[in-house]
């Protein structure tokens, strides 16, 4: 298995631990990934709120790079993934629009590259039974609230992953490493997304509600798959002095696969996970992170 890897802007900066942990997990499972040469911003939310052609052109430039490599894309950031999927879909439906995009990108053919989320590849392509033998640490007794947010599963016609009203992929993944997913209300509630900047008070209300529901359900930590959700939940916790660790699914899986905490970027999470994970990580491992 070999894929072109499109990290996107936030995985280079505020979501670096997501980037590190996905790479480590894929390396451990022997799935080869090659970073796109000179990738660029997909435009994300501001792109699609401003102009459809801009959004499609910015995101599909990266699909074009993958097409040149002859590889399918793996895209950890759900915003980047959603933009690529939407653009690909619109190009198929509207030939006039497709021509405009091809003109902007100097493309001779229609750009149709498969793009998938790493969680999708792990569960549906690689297979959970094949991950099982690699598990070295069981996180027995660890209660996790699997948080899906918005774009990972919505809208189903575009994201084509899991279920948009009752998803289970993150819950199933947690079980592979021995953790116990809790039943809770806010699996699919919006964290506030881009309002973090324009209407932070509303965003903090959204995020606080999610954190509170996780706490009420008895979760020790939250596990998720979106860099913006991660940032919003953690920054809300810093403001409100809450202490529930928020891990990327790749970090949780990585711990289970026996990868060292530092390699998974666990010291970068704003809310320290070491107290909750102290029963599962080695002492020298934690010390290495805290240095």
């Amino acid at each position: 298995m070999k894929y072109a890897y499109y990290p996107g802007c936030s995985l280079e900066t505020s979501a670096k631990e997501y980037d590190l942990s996905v790479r480590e997990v894929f390396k451990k499972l022997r799935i080869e990934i090659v970073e796109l040469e000179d990738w660029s911003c997909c435009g994300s939310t501001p792109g699609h709120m401003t102009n459809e052609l801009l959004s499609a052109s910015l995101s599909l430039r990266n699909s074009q790079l993958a097409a040149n490599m002859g590889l399918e894309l793996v895209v950890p950031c759900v915003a980047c993934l959603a933009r690529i999927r939407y653009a690909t879909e619109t190009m198929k439906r509207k030939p006039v629009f497709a021509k405009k995009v091809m003109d902007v990108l100097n493309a001779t053919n229609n750009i149709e590259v498969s793009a998938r989320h790493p969680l999708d590849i792990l569960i549906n392509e690689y297979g959970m039974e094949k991950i099982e033998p690699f598990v070295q640490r069981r996180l027995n007794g660890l209660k996790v609230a699997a948080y899906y947010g918005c774009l990972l599963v919505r809208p189903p016609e575009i994201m084509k992953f899991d279920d948009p009203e009752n998803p289970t992929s993150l819950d199933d993944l947690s079980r592979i490493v021995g953790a116990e997913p809790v039943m809770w209300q806010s699996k699919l509630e919006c964290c506030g997304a881009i309002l973090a900047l324009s209407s932070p008070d509303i965003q903090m209300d959204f995020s606080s509600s999610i954190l509170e529901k996780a706490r009420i359900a008895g979760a020790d930590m939250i596990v998720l798959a979106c860099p913006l959700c991660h940032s919003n939940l953690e920054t809300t916790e810093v403001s409100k002095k809450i202490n529930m660790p928020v891990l990327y699914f790749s970090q949780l899986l990585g711990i289970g696969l026996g990868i060292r905490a530092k390699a998974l970027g666990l010291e970068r999470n704003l809310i320290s996970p070491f107290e909750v994970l102290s029963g599962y990580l080695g002492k020298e491992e934690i010390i290495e992170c805290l240095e």
Partner: protein
Amino acid sequence: MFQIEFVKEIEEKTGINVLECYQCGKCSAGCPIGSSMDIVPNQVIRMVQRGLKDKVLRCKAIWMCLSCETCTTRCPRDIDLAKLIDTLREMSLKEREPATAQNLFERAKTGVKETLRIDRKENLKLINRSFLETVRRFGRCYEAGLVGAFNINSWLFFSKIKLGLPMFLKGKLKILPQAMKNPDEIKKIFEKVEKIEGIKI
């Protein structure tokens, strides 16, 4: 009576036939931010059905929508309402209310309360514009530059400042923009889109 021109314009641009909406209200029921909107999602599409183009392109609701895609997912008529709202945003920027620097001096004249009022609509438009400006220049989003530009232009000088230090200490805040080998390629994309669409981003 349905004003058919706007309905047709929307269908041509998006493929969405707004007349299929029978106002069940499921979109508004599931909208997480509905309570902060001036008109709720089913009213937005109702205005489009009624041809109230000017009114709907100037509403606050289309700028409160945070694209959670819940409405699109749940619509029993398979109407992509999130896409419709995106299109209304695009049209609003092009035809009615382009994103300009907030006229804070005008606001300041009316008093302290008005100056300090959070204008959510203008803030979002400003965030979008600042973000895209960094992408145009560097090819990748420059987070520190984006927040800086937003803080200055919105006069919310200290927004997010408290988070700056903890994020910096964890290596999450990059002082300098990310380097791309050929950022000019992205500049060209912006220029071409502006030319084809007849807009200024």
